[in-house]
C-alpha cells in the first residue's frame, strides 16, 4: 500500500501521537549534536544529517537499570525493572542504514536468551524510515547490499518528493495500524517524482568473498597492519547501529544500589580481561580482528546476516581514520 503525506500533515501526525501520550523518538539537537531522542513537539525534529549515534538506543539504551536492591540488616529487597513499564513508541526519521540494523539485532536478542528489555521495546515501537537524498564518501550501504531507500526494518517508509511531501509506503501491519490512527492525514499516492536518491561512496562488495577470506585467515599479517594505529577506544562500537555488546555492573553501596546494563566495546583492552589476569586478546590487532570477524563472519555463521549496514559512522568518527569499508573491500579482493 502506498500513500502520500504532506509535510504539514506529518508534523500533525507526530504532534497528535505526542498528545495522545505516545513516546515519539526522532533525530533532534542535543547540546549541538544530532541524536535520536524523545521529542515533545514535532518542531524539534532535525532531519538535516545522520544522527551521530544510531537508532539502536531506542531499543538498547546507552545505559539502563535492570534491578535495584536494598539491604537493611538481614533483610534484602531486590526489585526487577519490569519491561511492561516501557511506553508505546514511534521511532521517526530513521535512515535506512539504522532501520535495517534493527531486524539484524532481533536475531541476537531473541536467540538462546530472550532479552525482554530489547524485545518488549521492539514490540511496542513502530519504525518510520526515511529515504536518503544525500550521502558522503563514508556512506557505504550500497556496498553491503542495502540502499538509500531500503525498506528493511521500517514499518512505514517515507520518500521525499519533488515539490514537498512524502511518498509513504506501508511495509508492515504495525505501519498499517499507525495509519489507521489518523487516516485523514494521508492522501492518495502523488504523481510527483521522488527526489534523487543519495549516492553512497562505494559500490557493491562481495560479502561471500569477504566471509571466505575471514574463514581462512584468523591469523594474518593484515590484522597488525590495520590495527597498529588503533588506539583502543570504543567510539566505533558505540556509534554503530549493529554493535550490541554490553556490560552489567552494580553501582551503589552495600546498603542500596542498582544493577545496570551499559554499552561495551571489543576495542577496549578490558573487554576480554579475565579475572585470572589473563587476556586472550592481549594486543589491539586481536581486538580489531574480532570487530571485523564478528561483523562479517561470526554473525553470518550464527544468524546468516551481516552485522554492518554501511552507515559509515565508525569511519567518520574513528580518531585514527580506520576505514572499515576500505578494509572490507580490500579483503574481498584477497580471496
Amino acid at each position: 500500500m502506498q500513500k502520500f503525506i504532506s509535510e504539514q500533515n506529518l508534523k500533525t501526525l507526530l504532534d497528535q501521537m505526542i498528545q495522545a501520550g505516545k513516546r515519539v523518538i526522532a533525530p533532534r539537537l542535543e547540546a549541538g549534536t544530532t541524536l535520536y531522542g524523545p521529542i515533545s513537539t514535532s518542531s524539534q525534529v532535525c532531519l538535516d544529517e545522520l544522527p551521530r549515534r544510531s537508532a539502536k538506543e531506542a531499543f538498547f539504551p546507552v545505559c539502563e537499570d535492570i534491578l535495584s536492591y536494598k539491604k537493611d540488616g538481614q533483610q534484602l529487597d531486590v526489585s526487577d525493572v519490569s519491561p511492561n513499564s516501557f511506553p508505546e513508541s514511534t521511532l521517526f526519521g530513521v535512515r535506512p542504514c539504522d532501520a535495517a540494523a534493527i531486524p539484524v539485532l532481533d536475531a541476537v536478542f531473541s536467540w538462546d536468551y530472550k532479552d525482554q528489555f530489547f524485545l518488549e521495546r521492539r514490540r511496542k515501537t513502530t519504525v518510520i524510515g526515511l529515504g536518503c537524498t544525500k550521502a558522503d564518501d563514508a556512506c557505504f550501504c550500497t556496498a553491503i547490499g542495502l540502499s538509500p531507500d531500503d525498506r528493511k526494518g521500517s514499518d512505514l517508509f517515507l520518500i521525499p518528493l519533488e515539490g514537498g511531501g512524502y511518498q509513504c509506503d506501508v511495509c508492515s501491519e504495525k505501519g498499517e495500524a499507525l495509519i489507521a490512527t489518523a487516516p485523514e492525514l494521508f492522501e492518495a499516492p502523488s504523481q510527483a517524482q521522488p527526489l534523487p536518491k543519495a549516492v553512497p561512496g562505494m559500490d557493491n562488495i562481495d560479502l561471500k568473498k569477504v566471509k571466505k577470506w575471514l574463514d581462512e585467515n584468523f591469523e594474518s599479517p593484515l590484522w597488525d597492519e590495520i590495527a597498529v594505529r588503533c588506539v583502543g577506544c570504543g567510539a566505533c562500537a558505540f556509534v554503530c547501529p549493529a554493535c550490541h555488546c554490553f556490560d552489567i555492573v552494580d553501582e551503589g553501596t552495600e546498603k542500596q544500589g542498582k544493577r545496570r546494563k551499559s554499552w561495551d566495546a571489543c576495542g577496549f583492552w578490558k573487554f576480554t580481561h579475565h579475572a585470572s589476569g589473563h587476556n586472550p586478546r592481549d594486543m589491539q590487532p586481536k581486538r580489531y580482528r574480532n570487530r571485523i570477524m564478528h561483523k562479517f563472519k561470526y554473525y553470518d555463521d550464527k544468524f546468516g546476516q551481516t552485522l554492518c549496514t554501511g552507515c559509515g559512522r565508525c569511519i567518520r568518527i574513528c580518531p585514527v581514520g580506520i576505514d572499515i569499508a576500505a578494509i572490507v573491500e580490500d579483503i574481498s579482493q584477497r580471496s
Partner: protein
Amino acid sequence: MNQTIDTSAYSVITDAIRSEAARLLSAGEVSAVIGYAAARRKGSAQPIVITAADDAARLFFSPACVNNLAVYLTKAKKDVPRKGKIAIVVKSCDLRAIAGLIGESQLKREDLYLIGIPCAGVLASTASPDSELTNNSIASKCLECENNVPQGVDFTPAVKVSSPQGSSRYTAEIARLEQMSPAERWAFWKEQFSKCIKCYACRQVCPFCYCEQCLCDRNKPQMVDTTPRPSGNLAWHIVRAIHLAGRCAGCGECERVCPMDIPLNLLNRKMAKELKELYDYECGFEPQEKGPLNSYDEKDDQSFIK
C-alpha cells in the same frame, strides 16, 4: 570572511618526508617511521608506521594530518615496534607533548629522530577531510600556535609557510563561561557531559593518558562509576581535567576525537590558564622534570587556604 590559507608547501614537505624516511630506514638509522598516509576518503589521512624504505612513498602531509602521533610513542601503545631509534613526523604542537613525555621520563630524546613539519595549519574536526584550509576550517588549536616551525628537531624540510592568523577561539569561549554564574556554568557542562557515552576516545588519543591502568577502569576497588550516567561521566571528566592540569600540551586531540562533540579542550585550556595565573607555569617545548602540581615550593600561592 573566509580566507584561504596557502598550503602549497605541503607537497614539498611530503617529498622531503619521503626521502628522509627512505634514507633513515635504508641506512638503518631508525627501526620505524611514524607518519601520516593518505586514506580512502577524499583528502583523508591516517597514521601509519612503516619499517621498510620501500613504504616511504606512502607517507605524506596535508591539512588533514591533524593527529598528534606522539601517542604512538607511549607505553599505552604496545603495538608499535620498539627497537632502537624511532623516527616520528611532528608538528610544533605535537612536539610539546614529546617534551612533556621526556620530562616525565616516558621517552628519551636519544631514542627519537624528529622530523619537524613547518605547518601552516590543519583542519578542524568539523571540516570534511577534503576541505580547503581557511581561517574558518582551521583547527582551533592552530590559532593557539606560537611557533609553527618546530625547533630542536633532527630534520626540517626547507620551506617557508605562513603562521596561522586569527584570534583564539578558546579565549573567547573561556571568557564567556567565566562570566556565567556557577549555576549556569554547571548547566552548560551538565548538558555537555550528558552526551558522553564513555567511549574513552579522549583518553586513548591523549599522549599523557599513558597510565597502565586508568583509575576509571579499576574495579578493585571501584573508584569511579563506569556506566555512562551523570555521576560517572562527571567523575571521569573531572579526573581527566585535573590529571592533565600542568601536563596537557594543548594538542586538542581529546576534543577533536569526541564523537559527541564535547568541548573537552576548553577544560584543558581553562586549567592551563589557572596554572599560568597561579604558578606562572606553561607547558613549553623544553622538557621540565616537575610541573607545579607535583612539586612544592614555599613561595607557592597559599591564598586558597582559608
